């Protein structure tokens, strides 16, 4: 089996269309950039203030004025543009980002998302996440299906919300789940798992699409 995170990133990458403006969260979502077809012109946004985010620089070639939202040194592509934080979040809130890919602590049947705080344990702050999920045209959650066996896809989130009814799609190592007005629908499944195994790893009610496909790995 391919590395789980790489597999998830690879599947998410298929959701990106030529010409899209995309914002990738820190961690697993960042890997999505590695699976874009060469002939695609995808513009990556970095919410700290630019469009045209490129790959990490060679060691020793870092530009100290140029970091991404995860505080890593990065590069820009030709045609990039810089702006201030109000414009950056204007781009996000104003629905000019086609897709955002983020991790999650919990997602629920209504597409509600919790990914920024575990009261009493972890209080990092929401950063740009609340704006991103409210503003992006499509919100994809890329994460491992469970937290070491503990359910993350729930009937109802128990952690404080990041936002309500914002998630469009969940991609995990087990499959692809779409959030629809009638609930969660499993549309693709990793052939290493049975539908029962997916159900077991999910607290939320999941419908299985009549067109269920095999997930590419």
């Amino acid at each position, binding site marked *: 089996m391919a590395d789980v995170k790489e597999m998830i990133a690879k599947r998410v990458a298929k959701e990106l269309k030529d010409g899209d403006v995309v914002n990738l969260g820190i961690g697993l979502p960042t890997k999505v950039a590695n699976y874009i077809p060469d002939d695609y012109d995808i513009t990556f946004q970095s919410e700290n203030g630019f469009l045209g985010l490129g790959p990490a620089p060679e060691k020793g070639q870092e530009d100290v004025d140029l*970091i991404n939202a995860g*505080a890593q040194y990065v590069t820009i592509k030709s045609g990039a543009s810089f702006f201030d934080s109000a414009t950056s979040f204007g781009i996000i809130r104003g629905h000019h980002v086609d897709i955002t890919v983020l991790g999650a602590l919990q997602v629920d049947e209504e597409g509600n998302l919790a990914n920024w705080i575990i009261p009493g344990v972890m209080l990092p702050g929401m950063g740009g996440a609340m704006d991103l999920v409210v503003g992006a045209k499509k919100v994809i959650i890329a994460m491992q299906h469970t937290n070491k066996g503990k359910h993350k896809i729930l009937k109802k989130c128990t952690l*404080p919300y990041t936002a309500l009814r914002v998630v469009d799609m969940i991609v995990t190592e087990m499959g692809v789940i779409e959030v629809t007005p009638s609930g969660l629908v499993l549309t693709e499944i990793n052939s290493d798992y049975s539908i029962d195994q997916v159900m077991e790893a999910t607290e939320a009610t999941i419908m299985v699409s009549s067109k269920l496909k095999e997930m590419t790995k």
Partner: protein
Amino acid sequence: MQKKIKTLEEAIAPIKDGSVIMVGGFMGTGTPEILMDALVLKGIKDLVIICNDGAYPKRGVAKLIANKQVKTLIASHVGLNPEVGQQMDRGELEVILVPQGTLAERIRAGGTGLGGVLTPTGVGTIVAEGKQVITIEGKEYLLEMPLKADFALIRGSVTDKKGNVWYNESTRNFNPLMAMAADTVIVATEKIVEVGEIDPNNVMTPGIFVDVIVGGEKPWQM
């Protein structure tokens, strides 16, 4: 023309215990480090700091936090500076978390005389607590209020002697917004140039906002 270029010591002289200070930068990038160092040296306390984040140890506002000079931190993210959580747990530091886009917009509102803005961000979350919810065409928005400060500490890449500032790459972030929202604006800059050397089209913070210019800000040493 009024002389705006001052020494570090002169520049921070008016900053006192309890001052409300906006600090530009995103995880330290775009933060005026020489002003942070000067404030640490000065040792004033009970500061209210408005900054995108808590930076990371030994960088930007983290220096002030580590030195126990901050009473309240208004920020969108504090996860990469463990000292913040520790001081919060000990009740030494109050942290007010604001979504990043809302923080930017609140500072912009403060600087541009708006009474507030309506944003969909935070509706239905902890962020909405205590805030007015206004429904427009069936969609809910939070009324978010302006933020202002006594001082804005800004980092310029190139600054002319009138105070016109140009920011390089991702150092821009909150700097131009904060420069409009504070009573006194102090720019620490890498390069000081003659008036006219920055193309008027490309000025990012007009000189009328800048009260004090301090030279000697260096590129960050990794």
